[in-house]
């Protein structure tokens, strides 16, 4: 089980300290599929990066299956079973797709094993396995390779940050099927940051984060109608200054 206890994260800005996550407490049972959604700038990516250890928590605790991760660095958290697919994955000149998959797996992979991971993200393995993970790949291709590395890593907690971003409709359908199959295995806790209804509907539970706080939590059938009814977002300035925004 993943437990977040009173998690607070702040960043220093020109105007002083800005609170990004405000006292987040959360429990995710092992094997569950949680989708985190909410407006841009609400703290979703910060939450994911704080669990991975990329961003430091100002206060609070992060516990995975009884192991306190709070004071562990990124590498130690990765070894403790946390993995995180970046929203904007970096590229590596000279590093092959196969190399990256093997680093993720922590061992040499047979060709069929590497291919299986790529196929699960909708990439034709023979076209990609020997390619460099560099600027010659499109944003959508790099994104799918990133997801393949998380599958190769095989951690017990997998966090995906907007996996659908930049991915075409055909590949997206393949990807949702991969997430569904991963969940059906029952041995992986999945957290996906997403705005896509198809992904939200796969989840056991949906967490709505806005303004650095958990606004609501529940099954997709409860949260989705709330999101959809709230899609016409007003601008406060319009009310205040009579349309001069």
């Amino acid at each position, binding site marked *: 089980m993943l437990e977040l206890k009173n998690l607070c994260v702040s960043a220093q800005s020109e105007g002083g300290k800005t609170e990004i996550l405000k006292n987040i407490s959360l429990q995710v049972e092992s094997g569950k599929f949680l989708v985190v959604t909410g407006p841009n700038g609400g703290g979703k990516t910060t939450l994911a990066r704080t669990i991975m250890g990329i961003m430091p928590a100002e206060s609070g605790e992060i516990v995975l299956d009884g192991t306190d991760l709070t004071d562990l*660095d990124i590498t130690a958290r*990765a070894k403790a079973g*946390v993995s995180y697919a*970046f929203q904007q994955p*970096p590229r590596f000149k*000279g590093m092959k797709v196969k190399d990256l998959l093997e680093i993720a797996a922590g061992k040499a992979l047979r060709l069929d094993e590497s291919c299986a991971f790529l196929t699960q993200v909708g990439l034709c393995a023979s076209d990609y396995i020997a390619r460099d993970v560099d600027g010659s790949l499109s944003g959508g291709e790099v994104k799918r390779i990133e997801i393949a*590395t998380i599958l190769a890593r095989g951690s017990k907690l997998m966090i995906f940050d907007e996996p659908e971003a930049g991915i075409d409709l055909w590949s997206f359908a393949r990807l949702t099927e991969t997430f569904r199959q991963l969940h059906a295995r029952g041995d992986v806790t999945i957290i996906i940051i997403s705005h896509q209804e198809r992904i939200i509907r796969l989840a056991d539970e949906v967490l709505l984060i806005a303004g650095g706080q958990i606004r609501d939590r529940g099954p997709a059938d409860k949260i989705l109608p709330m999101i959809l009814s709230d899609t016409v977002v007003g601008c406060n300035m319009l009310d205040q200054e009579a349309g001069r925004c």
Partner: protein
Amino acid sequence: MLTDIQKQILARVADMKDTAPAHTAVNIRTNGQKAYRSQGEHIKIESKTDRDGIDIRIDPGTKGEKVYIPVVVSASGFQDMVYNDFYVGEGADVEIIAGCGIHNDGCDESRHDGIHTFYLEKNARVTYIERHYGEGSGTGKNVLNPQTVLYLKQGATVTLETSQIGGVDDTKRYTKIVCEGADSEAIIHEKLLTQGDQTAVSEMDVILNGENSKTRVISRSVAKENSVQTFYPRVEGNNACFGHVSCDSIIMGNARVKSIPAIACNHVDAGLMHEAAIGKIAGEQILKLKTLGLTDAEAEEKILEGFLR
């Protein structure tokens, strides 16, 4: 008879486990002397009579044969200069494995200056692999100053893969390729690693005289600690031709890298471009690999390994 140290260096710079593969043209030079020579079926090696060095003659139409001409300097303080000329016959397609390793346990400077000149006849294809490496417990410098000059006739193609894989204190590399014939092509992959107080200068002139001649220059380097690197890749287009120069360097510690590419178009149908980038390892790259379970040091090693592959 080669010593164990010499054999180890040969393995590093020429992938040679023993003296030579069978039925292959091989010339091993150690401390300025011929240590071993064998002739290939269609490739002959002869000593020069007017100065130190060898002539390598590759018969027209030779396909798939290799030539090994590694050099080992293991006597501290030894200064070596050699002239090697390659005559590659029409339509030949061969691989030439050169390279030099220095083992210096003394306090004097060890140095090897190799001047290689290639003459490629019509439609000849050459892959030239050159690895430079230095080692040893002494305080004497390991210095390598290679000059590689190539003349390409119509339809000839050369692929140069040069790498300096560590331990060389000073290097001044000069490469000149003249694509004289129509449809000739030169591809250059250069890899360079410097550390400590090492310095490296790589100067290059590619002259595209032939119609539809082409060149691609891909230079990758890593400069660590206090080392200094300077690159001068220059391409000149004197006919309808295409050239692309790409120089990428990773800089670490207090190292300094200067890249000064130059392209000159002297014909309206010459298309030349260059790009150069110097920067440290991106923080996100390290973070990404740490999330896959690597430490900072392991992540850095993997990034550099890929970059210099």
